[in-house]
């Protein structure tokens, strides 16, 4: 049968290529799996999947043009999403103009609510507001009294901070330190010295990978003893555990997926397939979201075919079964998956919150390896 | 007496411009050879070609029995040829002392450079006063002295000088020629480009007159000094010369 052509733009080169590698691998894994099953089920007929991929060169200015090209020149049948919030934003206009539905992936921002867009959906459950509230709740449950918050001045972490602070206040938790730092810092010693002096019960780093490394190194050297230590983005990346090994244990991080979650039957399978394809564990976050978005698209197409209006209707209303459990959208948001947190235990990321989803119990950070 | 440097039908130039046209010269060991000629005659071009800064286009250069056309300036320096270039070409950031030090960069000149530098300071007391000043800020005449001193630091066997008196005060010019005389006595062969023809011819043993990239005249200096052609075109005794011919 004639192949179904699915297009997307992604950073293969430039500064975002490393972070885009996970989603790209997940997409390719999905494609290979679908083709191995005989093809994509398009409302009953199986057709092979073919990708049309463009490199956006890590330039957000190129993204809109790429999707324009995919839709009007290449006339692709379906679209997958690029990596990162800013790239999602950049193509909303194009999607609306052409009425072309696309399931988003690695984007999370409160601003998407102001979008009122009809052709894009966000499967993440780590929206900053929910994230802040859940975090406060978890800390309260754990009996935390004092926290230090350390935020990198980048969109997503900053939005998180903004939602987290009032939630902490509401939960009666005292913020003893509220620091921000510029992206690109090379040293975090002074902040860590301050944290050490204040001895909070919890340290919440709203960080990105390069600065998460600085925290880990410094916290170990200065022996930060807070039982709850959180890093927003970073720990789930494969290189992180290679660098910190056992020290990563009991560090908490963002994420709503674990291969060990028994009631998501495909989670483990995905983990293993991804690992055998790339040689590395998926990063629990971006790769998972990308794979989920493809699964959602797959199921919507099986129901509605390739007609854009039918597809839009299907995505907006159906409930999909994914490696991350059932997903249903209201407006642009995923409303079924609750906000969760992961903790590394013996080198494996376990869901430790909320209790009803947990795959393991929270363990306080006890010590740093010497 | 033997010939130290010899060219045969040497041609050279810049880009599309052929400046030297079949120039054949010979510099005798231990002698002073002068090159004179009007502006643009090609004297500087000849010097640069001999030193290896410009490639030989046709013909050949023999230095101390070696064919040197394929050698670069450092290799020719190793054979004993050193040029004091037109326009001095000092290293502007270097102090006088650094310049002398680098003058002795060639491997054969490294030993004893300190003593030689002291000699230079004796020859040019002005340089001694300025030893820690940057060369780029020296006066025109001081730079000229520095360029000569730098050349001497490399223990040359053949010293080519392209208008070394340019910008020197009269007393200093006398001093310079006295110095050149002494250098010659140590057995160094000299090739001298000089505008002051009278001085040049009276100080040299042999001379070449260049015109438009060719050797127009050559001969023992004393003889040329008396030649009416030289007098007419270079000594500014035009009227008399014109009436003679």
């Amino acid at each position, binding site marked *: 049968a004639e192949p179904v052509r699915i297009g997307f733009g992604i950073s*293969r*080169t*430039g500064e975002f290529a490393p972070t885009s590698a996970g989603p790209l691998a997940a997409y390719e894994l999905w494609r290979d799996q679908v083709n191995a099953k005989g093809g994509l089920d398009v409302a009953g007929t199986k057709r092979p999947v073919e990708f049309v*991929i*463009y*490199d956006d*060169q890590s*330039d*957000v*200015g190129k*993204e*809109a*043009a790429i999707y*324009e*090209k995919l*839709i*009007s*020149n290449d006339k692709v049948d379906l679209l997958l999403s690029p990596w990162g*919030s*800013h790239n999602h*934003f*950049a193509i*909303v*206009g*194009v999607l609306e*103009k052409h009425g072309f539905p696309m399931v988003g992936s690695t984007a999370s*921002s409160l*601003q998407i609510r*102001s*979008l009122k867009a009809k052709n894009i959906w966000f499967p993440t459950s780590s929206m900053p507001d929910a994230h802040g509230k859940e975090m406060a709740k978890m800390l309260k449950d754990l009996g935390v009294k004092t926290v230090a918050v350390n935020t990198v*001045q*980048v*969109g*997503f972490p*900053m*939005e998180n901070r*903004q939602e987290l602070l009032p939630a902490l206040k509401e939960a009666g938790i005292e913020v003893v330190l509220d620091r*921000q730092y*510029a*992206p690109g810092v090379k040293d975090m010693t002074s902040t860590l010295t301050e944290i050490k002096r204040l001895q909070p019960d919890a340290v919440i780093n709203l960080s990105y990978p390069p600065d998460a490394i600085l925290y880990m190194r410094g916290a170990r050297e200065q022996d930060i003893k807070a039982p709850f230590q959180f890093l927003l983005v970073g720990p789930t990346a494969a290189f992180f555990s290679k660098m910190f090994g056992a020290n990563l244990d009991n560090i908490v991080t963002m994420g709503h997926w674990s291969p060990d979650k028994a009631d998501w039957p495909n989670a483990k399978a995905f983990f293993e397939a991804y690992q055998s394809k790339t040689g590395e564990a998926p990063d629990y976050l971006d790769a998972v979201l990308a794979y989920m978005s493809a699964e959602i698209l797959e199921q919507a197409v099986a129901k509605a075919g390739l007609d854009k209006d039918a597809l839009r209707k299907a995505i907006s209303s159906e409930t999909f079964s994914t490696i991350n459990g059932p997903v249903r959208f209201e407006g642009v948001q995923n409303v079924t998956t609750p906000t969760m947190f992961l903790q590394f235990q013996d080198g494996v990321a376990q869901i430790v919150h909320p209790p009803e989803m947990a795959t393991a119990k929270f363990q306080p950070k006890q010590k740093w390896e010497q | 007496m033997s010939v130290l440097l010899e060219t045969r039908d040497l041609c050279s130039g810049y880009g599309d411009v052929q400046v030297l046209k079949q120039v054949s010269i010979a510099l005798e060991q231990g002698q002073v050879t002068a090159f004179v000629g009007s502006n643009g005659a090609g004297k500087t071009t000849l010097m640069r070609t001999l030193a290896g800064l410009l490639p030989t286009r046709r013909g050949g250069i023999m230095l101390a029995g070696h064919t040197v056309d394929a050698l670069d300036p450092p290799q020719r320096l190793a054979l004993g040829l050193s040029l004091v270039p037109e326009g001095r070409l000092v290293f502007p950031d270097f102090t006088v002392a650094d310049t002398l030090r680098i003058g002795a960069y060639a491997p054969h000149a490294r030993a004893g450079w300190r003593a030689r530098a002291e000699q230079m300071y004796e020859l040019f007391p002005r340089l001694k006063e300025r030893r820690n000043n940057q060369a780029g800020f020296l006066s025109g005449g001081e730079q000229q002295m520095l360029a000569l001193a730098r050349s001497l630091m490399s223990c040359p066997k053949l010293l080519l000088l392209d208008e070394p008196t340019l910008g020197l005060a009269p007393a200093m010019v006398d001093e310079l020629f006295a110095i050149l005389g002494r250098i010659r006595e140590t057995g160094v062969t000299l090739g001298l480009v000089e505008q002051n023809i009278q001085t040049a011819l009276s100080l040299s043993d042999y001379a070449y007159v260049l015109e438009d990239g060719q050797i127009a005249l050559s001969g023992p200096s004393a003889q040329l000094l008396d030649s009416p052609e030289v007098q007419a075109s270079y000594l500014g005794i035009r009227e008399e010369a014109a009436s003679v011919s």
Partner: protein
Amino acid sequence: MNGVRHSRLAAWLGLLAAAAIAPALVGGYGQSVLMQLYGWIALTASWVAFSAMTGYISLGHAVFYGMGGYLMAVSWMQLPILAVLLLAGLAAAAFAALVGLPSLRVRGPYFVILTFGLAEFFKYVVVAIESSLGISGRLLLGAPDVLWLSYGMLVLAALAVLLVMVLRHSRLGVGLWAVREDETAAATLGVPTTCVKLLAFVLSAILPAMVGALTVLRSTYFEPMQMFSPMTSFTIVTMAIIGGSDRPAGPVLGAAFIMLLSEVLWSRMPEFYMVLLGVLLLGFVLFAPDGIVGKWMARRNRLGGGF
């Protein structure tokens, strides 16, 4: 002489006409590409008007571009687009005048890195401002259609090329050239060096700001790390040198060539086009030092076409 001048004028007008018709003929994607092309021409020509003329290589033109984008994002839906464009140009000019005075005392490689530093400095100032306002990225909804944006860009590109042409044949241009060759000698002949450098710097800052303002309307999203990315500056220099920075046609050819090349390679060989681009860039710098224009002129002269 006059005939040549007329035929050259005709060629430019023809090119302009073609550039004006093109967006109407191609689809949405084509319009996007044309818009980017015109934008790069405007940026590159503006850069040439300062850097190529004076020999002060600026690696900081991203700052003007980003500044324009920022102003557009901040005043979106509050001021008419045209007003914002003018404002962006003015703001960039003012900023250039302010930092130009001390920066232009610095020469050679120092200047290159200094301008880079200035652009980064400004970027982080914007990051800090946005953070303190609690804003993380600005979304611009309801921006004009890409067709209109591409016409806007075309106007900017035409203005920038015109700027280079006028400069080259003006008194100011001669002064700038003298500055490039030897600043001390220029000053001694009466060229008020600081003044002419500053003037050129200011002139070359205006249009990039406007390009930035239009660009942000296209991407509909403003984020300082993206908008002030140093890659913009690098690309500008690349296009200018490849095209040949001694003639007004240089920026046009350079931008067109790189855009065309990456369009062609980009979809054909996604894995290797950046590598190939790099190799081509090397080839150009090493074997066509005067850029495409230079090669072309040399060929014409050799064929006896001369003028």
